[in-house]
């Protein structure tokens, strides 16, 4: 599902990813970890082609990401749900509208939008606050809205950038369960985190980055 071969990426001559290669199979659940600034976010951004890379090959869902034209990017991104580290919620919309937005963009019909958006909010335990605006929610709640939006289109791949970063351990573990559930239903998951607890709790493969290099890989124990 996701294949990287000798990928290099630098921002203005400072390397962010160095010779990164790995394969993630369809339906897998993989953690990406490492200290702050190690390149976790950068790695995820390459997968949905928000950032370009300098060298190597990236294949996602059978698409050669490096060769993809701007006008065709949506073909890649419609199969990928992303939970952004900074959530990227639209402040002018209610949280229900925020989740619905992802459905509108792909041209779903009105009835489906209303039903699915509400379902997705319920799934993260926020349906009672559907008419609230992001500003009126706590960081953790906003994070859950972002998760709901990433999942609402039933993407083949879910990329989550620190989706538990703002949550207390109890809530973090609930959110992890959401991803576990999606994974059981067949979604391939790449989950960036530096929480040891999460790494222990979910018994999954781990890719550890250090200053842009793969320092360690752990297979399922």
């Amino acid at each position: 599902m996701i294949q990287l071969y000798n990928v290099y990426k630098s921002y203005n001559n400072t390397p962010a990813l160095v010779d990164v290669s790995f394969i993630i199979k369809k339906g897998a659940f993989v953690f990406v970890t490492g200290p702050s600034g190690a390149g976790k976010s950068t790695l995820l951004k390459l997968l949905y082609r928000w950032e370009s890379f300098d060298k190597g090959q990236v294949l996602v869902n059978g698409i050669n990401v490096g060769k993809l034209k701007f006008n065709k990017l949506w073909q890649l991104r419609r199969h990928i749900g992303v939970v952004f580290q900074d959530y990227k919620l639209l402040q002018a919309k209610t949280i229900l509208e925020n989740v619905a937005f992802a459905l509108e963009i792909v041209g779903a019909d009105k009835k489906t939008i209303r039903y699915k958006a509400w379902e997705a909010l319920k799934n993260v335990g926020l349906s009672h606050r559907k008419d609230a605006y992001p500003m009126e929610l706590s960081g953790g709640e906003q994070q859950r809205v972002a998760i709901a939006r990433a999942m609402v289109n039933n993407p083949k791949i879910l990329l989550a950038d620190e989706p538990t970063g703002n949550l207390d351990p109890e809530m973090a573990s609930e959110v992890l369960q959401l991803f576990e559930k999606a994974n059981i239903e067949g979604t391939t998951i790449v989950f960036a985190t530096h929480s040891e607890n999460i790494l222990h709790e979910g018994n999954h493969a781990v890719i550890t980055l250090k200053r842009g290099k793969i320092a360690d890989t752990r297979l399922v124990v």
Partner: protein
Amino acid sequence: MRILKTTFTNIKTNKQLFFASVGTITIALSILGLFLFVYINLNSVLSFWNNQVQLIVYLEDGISEGPKKQLENIFSTHTEIASFDFVSRERAWDNFQSMFSEKSTFIKGMGFNPLPASYNLAIKESSDRLAFIQNLAKKLSDHEGVESVEYGEDWINRFETFMILMRVFLFALGALLCLGAVFIIANTVKLSVLSRKDEIDLMLLIGGTPGFIKIPFFLEGIFHGLLGAFVSLGLMKGIHLYLVNQFQGSLESFGRGMEFQFISPPFIGLIVLVSIFVGWLGSFLSLQQFLGVYKKT
């Protein structure tokens, strides 16, 4: 529907900008429209006067029947000549006297008739009428028995040249004003795009197609252009009505059957089409520039 809503939200969030943009476009189109208005009315004056143009063939005093017959033959073979009227020396003198006798005893006292006989020709209206008149005049002035040929040559020529200049001027002015309007709209749409950068980013990130993202902005630009066009057309209609109300009487005394012309439907259509194009182009330019940034990374 949702797209329309997005368009109007865009406009609402940038209200001042919207009014500035539509206002400038209105002014630009109004200036253009006023010149168009003047042009159309001058044109109608021209064609009105054109209808009055007569070709007068003055005959030599001693002309015999032969050349006169030949002349009349020439007149009747040209289908462009609507009618011709022979004015004998005596009739010309009578006309002249009846026009001036009350004012001048001198004329009455004149013992001889100084006026030549003539043919007055009415020429049918057509696009190359002036060329026809010029040709005919040249041909006739060389004809046996013809003293001279007269028509309002000079000022018709000058007026036509003026109208051609006016047309060139209008075209240049129109192009210039449209260019200005394009830049104004491009700028407004650019600010509108920038103020929604986060939303556009997100749309791109969750799989929106570039077309889907661009549509509201195209609609916004086109809406600016169209609204400017309609406001300026309304303004011009107002001016037209005012002129008709205030000056129709004095225009009638100037020439019977003359009236103020409003910009004709084809021109109105053209203005609307141009405004749509201008709006589209303005949006296109700023979107091209904005999305170009994404293409590079």
